[in-house]
C-alpha cells in the first residue's frame, strides 16, 4: 500500500471535493426551482399537464448517464453546443427537477381535500389557497424526501466525470492515472463522498422521525 500518494495528492482531491459540492449545490438550487414549476403543472390539466408528465417520465425513467450523453453529444447535431460543465449541470438539473416535481406533487396531493375546500369557502382564490394554506403544510412533508434527493444528487454528480468535468471522481481518476495507486485513491475518494453524504443522511432520518412524531 502506498498511502504517501494520498497525502501527496490531498489538496488536489480536496479541490475535487469542492467542485463536487459546488456542482451539487448548483444542481440542487436549479432543480428545486424548476421542479416546483413542473410539480405544480402536474396538478393542473391540459397541455401544461401533458408536457410536465412527459418531462417527468422521460427524465425519471432513463439513466442519468444517457441524459448527459444526449445533451453533451446529441444536441450539437441540432446546433446546440454546450461545454462539458454546462451539459452535465443541465442534465442533472433536469433529472433533479423531474424527481422534485414528483415530491412536490405527492406532498400537495397528500393534503386533505377539506383544507382546499375550507380555504376556498373563506373566500381565498385558488392561488391564495395554495400559497397560504396548502403549501405551508405540504412544504413540511416535502422536506425529508427533498433532503434524500439532495444526497442522491450529491452522489450522482460523480457522473460528470464521464464528460471530464472537474470534480472529486475526475480528480481521483487523474491521480490514479498518474500514480496507479488505484486501491488507496478510490478508497479515499469514497470516504470523502461519505464524509459529505452521511451527515445529510443522518439529518434526513432525524427530521423524518421528528415529523412522524409531531403528526402522530
Amino acid at each position, binding site marked *: 500500500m502506498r498511502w504517501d500518494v494520498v497525502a501527496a495528492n490531498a489538496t488536489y482531491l480536496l479541490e475535487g471535493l469542492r467542485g463536487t459540492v459546488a456542482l451539487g449545490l448548483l444542481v440542487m438550487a436549479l432543480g428545486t426551482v424548476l421542479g416546483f414549476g413542473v410539480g405544480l403543472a402536474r396538478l393542473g390539466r391540459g397541455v401544461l399537464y401533458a408536457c410536465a408528465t412527459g418531462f417527468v417520465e422521460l427524465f425519471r425513467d*432513463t439513466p442519468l448517464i444517457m441524459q448527459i450523453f444526449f445533451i453533451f453529444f446529441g444536441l450539437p447535431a441540432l446546433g446546440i453546443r454546450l461545454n462539458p460543465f454546462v451539459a452535465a449541470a443541465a442534465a442533472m438539473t433536469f433529472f433533479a427537477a423531474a424527481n422534485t416535481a414528483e415530491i412536490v406533487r405527492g406532498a400537495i396531493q397528500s393534503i386533505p381535500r377539506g383544507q382546499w375546500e375550507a380555504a376556498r369557502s373563506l373566500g381565498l382564490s385558488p392561488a391564495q389557497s395554495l400559497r397560504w394554506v396548502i403549501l405551508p403544510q405540504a412544504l413540511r412533508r416535502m422536506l425529508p424526501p427533498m433532503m434524500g434527493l439532495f444526497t442522491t444528487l450529491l452522489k450522482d454528480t460523480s457522473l460528470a466525470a464521464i464528460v471530464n468535468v472537474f470534480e472529486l471522481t475526475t480528480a481521483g481518476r487523474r491521480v490514479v492515472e498518474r500514480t496507479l495507486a488505484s486501491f488507496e485513491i478510490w478508497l479515499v475518494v469514497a470516504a470523502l463522498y*461519505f464524509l459529505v*453524504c452521511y451527515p445529510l443522511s443522518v439529518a434526513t432520518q432525524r427530521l423524518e422521525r421528528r415529523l412522524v412524531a409531531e403528526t402522530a
Partner: protein
Amino acid sequence: MPGPAQFWLESLPALLRGALLTLQVSGLSIVLASLLGVAVAACRTAPVPLLRWAGAAYVEVFRNTPLLVQIFFVFFGLPRLGLRLSPFQSGLAALSLYTAAYNAEVFRAGLEAVPRGLREAAAALGLSPWQRFRHVILPLAVRISLPALGNNFVALVKNSSLVSTIGMVELTFVARDLEAWTFRSFEVYGAATLLYLGLVLALAWGLRGVEARTLAYLRPRAR
C-alpha cells in the same frame, strides 16, 4: 448517408444485443441484491448488537458513496489486493452490493411492520426461531416490501448503465461505440434512451402485475 429510419434499422440489432446484456446483469443483480438485502436486514433487526451495528454500517457505507466510485473501486482498486474481476463480474458485484443496501432498508421496514402478535403466535405454535423467520415473518415482510422493492429494481436497471464505464458491452456502451463510429449521436442516444424507457416501463408494468397477484388477498373479496 442513410436516412434516420434506415440508420435506426441497421443499428437496432447491436443496440438490442446491448439491451440483452443490460437485462442479464440487471436480472442477476436483482436476485443477488435481494438475497443479500434480506441477510443485511435480518442482521439489522437481530437481537445481537454487533450484528445490528454491522448491518447498519453496511447500509450507510454503500448508500452514502456514489455507485460509480464503488464500480471503480471494485474494478480498478481490488486487483491491487490480488482480486482481479472481469468487467461483468465487477459490475455485477458493485450493482448487487449497492442495491442490497437499499433493499435492506426496504426489507427492514417490512420486517418491522409484521405485527408482534404474529411472531408470538408462531412461537406459541412451537416453531423454532429459523422456522418463524422463514415461514411466518419473511413471507409477510416480502409482501409488504414489494412496492418499494420494485422502485429499487427500476433504479437498478438505470444504474446498470454505469457499468459501461469499465467496458461492459451493455446498452450504454453499445450506444457510445455506435456514436464513435458513425457520429450520429442524436439518433443513437435517442434510440438508446427509448430502449431504456421501454425496459423500465416493461419492468414497472411487470412489477405491478406481481404486486396485484401477491397482494390480492388484501382486497375485499366479492361474495
